[in-house]
């Protein structure tokens, strides 16, 4: 393992803040160069060396990349891999700028260390140049800053941000900077001008002198080279890896059972026990008493714990623990929440909207004079929309393995927020954060759920209380019924049309405003008078960001209502939208393209119809057309088309996979997603009653991409989702004349 010698540590230095981030460099004992990018002042790069060095044969070229003696290059990425493909694409971006040989590039998850804080992700929310929000959405900036503050100290994966922040502002800079230092070292050694040295496939060469060498030969000497804080990055015509559908590096391990997820943790030398838990059925309540008589006598049971906000059984196997915990009769405290059913929850929302009326609530966005324009409009329409609570339901149940011994705690878990998990564990069991070590392998899905870390703290408490190294697993039922949720919401919308049917006034008011703050604003459309308002209302279930966050409800509300306006005007819904996109050429191009590939203007078969929706989210514009066959009376999707403009796509096939997944995720929610309440507790419990779309229900999905040009690039993980529900609902209207104003859809056509 590499280490820093004290005298060499003094050479460690941090560069000045630049537009692209900090670059710091240090020299390794025994030679070698270490560069880190995107780190905060006060975090010496050098201390990271031992954490990312795999063995004696390796030299760290920088904290985002290391080169071993076989010229294998390892990109070290600060984001977790939860299925979005970020590891692979971040590696591609670094390797391209470094002119590395892709066949010999590996990707490694950065350790959970404060120095790997994803500064650029936080900065995205500070830097207006990265955002396309219209300037008249002034109040929404407050929301952005709230999010920024929450993320500022997080090593976080979310917000469809890995590629467009860390990739653009850190990985590429690291690669380019390291390449320049390697060239500098080779130029000195060979006595030739640096600008005559060519790099390709992890090799340096100089034609005139006949010199050539692998990068590894100059990794040590490169340490003495000056650092370029703002190296020139490649232009698109120079890309060799970016923009290409390179195969994902994580896939080989995911097809033979060797990929390690959090739940697979099997720490060497630890004899694990297993914990199953029961949490309160109604949020905010606690276990007052329990009768664990039956569980006590069950085989394999080691300990039964009442931890207040959960009950746990620790046993020799998870199955035994779960069987035993199921037998415990628990008396829970009473909840003060007035919400016992979803009708109660919607009544709370309705009361808030009633109070806000036609002008009240807090202003989200305002342009022109919507109230007067509504009063003067030739035609007005209004509608109330609803969306239910949803669970994230990642395939890998929530779990955490914890070992507390000798004043330290080791954690193995799937998390989107390793540093926040570390802080939560430390404060929960009374340790310093430095004494908590987070090991975080692949995530078996997350979708926002693993931005919360309460399950991690639970495992730490059980491990500390029992003294056993313990793997704690939530059952699917616990995950469905007692977790954190996509919030329900209600929106009331009004629109005013002039004599020609043009939309001249728009007003909406809704109750749940989280992130992104502008999700509710139809900013792309030319609507002279727009008012968007939020009327806050209490939620019964705890909130957690869920794939695309507010866009998941607002996409449905806004794009369904725009469709209502089109029909009220007697216009084709796609043409109606096009007519309002005169100031949004990228949106217009996306919509025109989806009309083309979907055959929008060709008639559909009897009983079949198409619906369209377009939403910009996380920097990417996505339009979707869904064709639905209603001839049986039930919606059967027959074809789906999507067109996306993310500015520039780094890995087209990986991007398309994300869009396909986002569409299926959105349609699962649209068709089936619903959590009902009884006595304040969730009724649905597992996949038999919290249904997922299955392969037989998902038709062909065609995804076309537009690289529109020189704009900040957009995300991939979330933007496919928001247009899916409205496109389906709009297709159902086109086929049947029945307007869907609440989700889920399937039960309304049962």
């Amino acid at each position: 393992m590499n280490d820093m010698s004290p005298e060499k540590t003094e050479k460690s230095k941090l560069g000045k803040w630049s537009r692209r981030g900090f670059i710091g460099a240090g020299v390794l004992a025994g030679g070698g160069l270490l560069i880190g990018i995107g780190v905060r002042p006060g975090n010496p790069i050098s201390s990271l060396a031992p954490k990312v060095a795999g063995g004696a044969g390796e030299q760290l070229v920088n904290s985002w990349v290391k080169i071993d003696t076989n010229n294998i290059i390892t990109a070290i990425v600060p984001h977790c891999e939860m299925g979005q493909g970020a590891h692979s694409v971040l590696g591609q971006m670094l390797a391209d700028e470094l002119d590395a040989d892709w066949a010999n590039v590996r990707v490694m998850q950065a350790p959970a260390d404060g120095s790997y804080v994803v500064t650029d992700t936080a900065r995205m929310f500070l830097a207006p140049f990265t955002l396309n929000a219209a300037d008249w959405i002034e109040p929404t900036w407050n929301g952005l800053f709230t999010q920024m503050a929450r993320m500022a100290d997080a090593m976080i994966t979310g917000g469809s941000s890995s590629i467009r922040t860390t990739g653009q502002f850190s990985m590429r800079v690291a690669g380019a900077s390291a390449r320049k230092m390697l060239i500098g070292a080779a130029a000195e050694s060979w006595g030739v001008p640096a600008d005559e040295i060519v790099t390709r496939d992890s090799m340096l060469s100089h034609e005139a002198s006949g010199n050539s060498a692998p990068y590894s030969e100059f990794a040590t000497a490169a340490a003495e080279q000056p650092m370029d804080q703002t190296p020139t990055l490649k232009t698109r015509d120079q890309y060799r890896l970016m923009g290409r559908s390179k195969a994902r590096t994580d896939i080989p391990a995911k097809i033979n059972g060797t990929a390690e997820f959090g739940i697979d943790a099997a720490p060497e030398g630890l004899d694990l026990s297993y914990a199953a838990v029961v949490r309160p059925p109604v949020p905010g309540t606690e276990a007052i008493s329990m009768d664990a008589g039956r569980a006590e006598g069950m085989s394999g049971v080691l300990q039964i714990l009442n931890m207040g906000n959960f009950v746990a059984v620790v046993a020799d196997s998870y199955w035994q623990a779960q069987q035993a915990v199921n037998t415990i009769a628990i008396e829970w405290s009473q909840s003060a929440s007035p919400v016992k059913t979803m009708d109660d929850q919607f009544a709370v929302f309705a009361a808030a909207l009633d109070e806000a009326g036609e002008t009240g609530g807090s202003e989200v966005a305002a342009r022109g004079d919507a109230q007067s324009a509504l009063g003067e409009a030739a035609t007005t329409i209004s509608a109330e929309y609803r969306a239910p609570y949803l669970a994230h339901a990642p395939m890998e149940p929530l779990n955490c393995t914890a070992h507390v011994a000798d004043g330290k705690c080791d954690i193995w878990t799937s998390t989107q927020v390793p540093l926040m998990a570390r802080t939560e564990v430390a404060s929960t069991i009374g340790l310093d954060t430095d004494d908590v070590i987070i090991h975080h392998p692949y995530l078996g899905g997350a979708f926002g759920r693993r931005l919360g870390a309460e399950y991690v703290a639970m495992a730490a408490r059980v491990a500390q209380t029992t003294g056993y190294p313990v793997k704690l697993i939530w059952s699917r039922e616990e995950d469905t019924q007692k977790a954190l949720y996509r919030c329900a919401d209600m929106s009331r919308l009004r629109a005013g049309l002039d004599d020609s049917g043009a939309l001249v006034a728009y007003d909406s008011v809704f109750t749940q405003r989280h992130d992104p703050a502008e999700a509710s604003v139809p900013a792309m459309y030319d609507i002279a008078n727009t008012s968007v308002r939020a009327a806050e209302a209490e939620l019964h279930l705890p909130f957690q960001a869920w794939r695309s966050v507010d866009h998941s409800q607002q996409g449905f509300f806004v794009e369904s209502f725009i469709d209502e306006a089109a029909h009220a005007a007697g216009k084709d819904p796609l043409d109606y939208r096009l007519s309002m996109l005169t100031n949004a050429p990228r949106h217009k191009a996306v919509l025109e393209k989806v009309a083309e590939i979907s055959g929008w203007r060709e008639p559909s078969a009897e009983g079949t119809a198409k619906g369209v929706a377009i939403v910009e989210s996380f920097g990417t514009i996505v339009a979707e057309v869904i064709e639905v066959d209603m001839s049986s009376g039930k919606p059967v999707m027959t074809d789906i088309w999507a067109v996306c403009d993310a500015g520039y796509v780094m890995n087209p096939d990986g991007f398309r996979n994300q869009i396909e997944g986002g569409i299926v995720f959105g349609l699962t929610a649209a068709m089936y997603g619903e959590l009902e309440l009884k006595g304040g507790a969730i009724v649905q419990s597992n996949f038999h009653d919290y249904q997922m779309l299955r392969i037989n229900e998902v038709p062909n999905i065609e995804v076309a991409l537009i690289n529109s040009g020189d704009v900040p690039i957009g995300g991939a993980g979330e933007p496919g989702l928001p247009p899916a529900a409205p496109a389906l609902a709009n297709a159902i209207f086109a086929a049947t004349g029945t307007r869907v104003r609440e989700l889920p859809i399937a039960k309304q056509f049962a």
Partner: protein
Amino acid sequence: MANFILNGESISVDADPAMPILWVVREKLGLSGTKFGCGIAQCGACTVHLDGEPVRSCSTAVSQAEGREVTTIEGIAGPEGELTKVQQAWVSEQVPQCGYCQSGQIMSATALLRDNPSPSDADIDAAMSGNICRCGTYTRIRRAIKVASGQVEPRTEDLSEEA
């Protein structure tokens, strides 16, 4: 003691006869490729083969495997790790996202193709609808099965200039 053949190897393991195969292979035998998803045979993440037939190992007691052959995701490749046609197609079509359900998907697809070398869309629906993919890779799973059965050409690795 439970006695069965796991991936071609005779196994004797001290386990409650009622314990599901899933937990025996994961916790007692250290093979973690078979995944826990729902515990009630609704999602298919735990799919293994019992005498060649796909079963949900979360809901199949180890006693039912007595004297029989259990095959997990770790046991389908060749002796030197050579990938099966199904696994190769899962790579060429770049199927997985998070990958958690894919062991079960591959086990279901493998059983389908053994019985039906050229499945139709309806055959694929029937055989694969017990496997949930929360990431939504269904269209790729369908294409990969068609690639593995020779009905569709595999894609090449680098689809470079398309975008």
